[in-house]
């Protein structure tokens, strides 16, 4: 029971953090003419989440802590659905280059970030 309440709280905290980070970065990026269309907030959230998850998963955490930190917190901090929706919205407006860039950049940086997280964990 305590564990489930922990999942609830950690998940909630992850979602709130995403809302704040995504909003702050998105607002700044949306103003920049060079990045018209690219949803930077979501990219930053997903890449930083991947790095954090890489780090956490490489640490030998006990399984309850791992559930709270990985699945609940990072799971609700990062977002696959928003990434997909925003890419589809770019396609709708015929911004094909931005849509493809959004997918490729997210994957490349995301995998790189997860590796980087693991590398950091290995050096701790």
């Amino acid at each position, binding site marked *: 029971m305590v564990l489930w309440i922990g999942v609830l709280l950690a998940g909630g905290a992850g979602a709130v953090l*995403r*809302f704040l980070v*995504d*909003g702050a970065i*998105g*607002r700044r990026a*949306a*103003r920049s*003419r060079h990045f*018209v*269309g690219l*949803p*930077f*907030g*979501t990219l930053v959230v997903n890449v930083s989440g991947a790095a954090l998850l890489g780090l956490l998963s490489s640490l030998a955490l006990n399984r309850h802590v791992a559930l709270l930190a990985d699945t609940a917190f990072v799971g609700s901090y990062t977002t696959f659905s*928003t990434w997909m*929706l*925003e890419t589809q*919205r770019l*396609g*709708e*407006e*015929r*911004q094909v*280059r*931005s849509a493809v860039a959004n997918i490729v950049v997210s994957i490349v940086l995301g995998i790189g970030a997860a590796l980087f997280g693991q590398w950091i964990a290995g050096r701790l």
Partner: protein
Amino acid sequence: MNQPCLKLTAYFGERQRVVTDDVRRPGFLADAMLDLFDTRELATSVMLRGITSFGPRHVLRTDESLTLSEDPPVAIAAVDVESKISGLVNDVVAMTGRGLVTLERARLVRGGDVLDDTNGDAIKLTVYVGRQERIAGLPAYRAVCDLLYRRGFSGGAVFLGVDGTAHGERYRARFFSRNVNVPLMIVSIGTAAQVSAAVAELSAAASNPLLTVERVRLCKRSGELFASPHRLPDKDDRQRPLWQKLTVHTSEATGHGGVPIHRALVHRLLDSGLAHGATVLRGIWGFHGDHKPHGDKLFQLIRRTPVVTTIIDTPEWIARSFDIVDELTSEHGLVTSEMLPAVVSITGPDSEGWTDLARHDY
């Protein structure tokens, strides 16, 4: 029955709360405003949700990011005879914390009205109908667009209201409802002769449609420059400030340099620092130029819905913004300009209220 009327339009962020002395949690501004229009039994009012905007503080609202699209811009238009609208302007301004309120002169028209030619300028015809109303078996908005297209109008766009009043009754869109009477707004641009003919035809075909006409200048169509916006003085002869509105009709999928025109336009205006604000509304159906009326289809990758960018500014700043508009609409788009006789920009608690409508013949 060609009756002078006023059109009030309020622009603000949807999550904004109403300014009130009530100590409890105040309600949403949009809701309170429509409650006011409902109690005053306005001929029509319609609330439209925008996709991107910025105002005098240069804070950008956009639906490009999911998190940011949680607070979209809204535009609420209300139309009735002069006495009714001028009687509620100060209430609207008082309940708004931040936003822009504009007043425009228009005329309510019915079948049989013949419109005068307005010094070679064009006419904007606005039609208000219910969402599910039907004309000759077709949804009313599609029938109206077909008619306008057939009459040779330069362009037209249908905007879906999410809330509003029609003939003094409140109709709010709900999720589990057919939303039959929730108003739609159809904005179109034509010549005096085209509008007169369309008004006669519409009055005969639809039951009790609400039609208004306003004078506009047709500046550009499909890349062709007809005329620059009127160079108006900053003030009329009694020192009342004049404002101008530029309207840019484009399609969601028409781009300039790989970016949709409306997105590029908002960014360029924001970057220039020489614009007080702009709002983009997405329509559900429409046309401009030579292509037939179009909208969303069930299966599609690219949306072809019309989008309309509205830029409201002082005459001096409009002239500068027009240069940006002109550059971005080098191939596509329909651009019009109008005079606004009164604008109240509400940037804080001590904003000035409304005084008087300016008058300027041009």
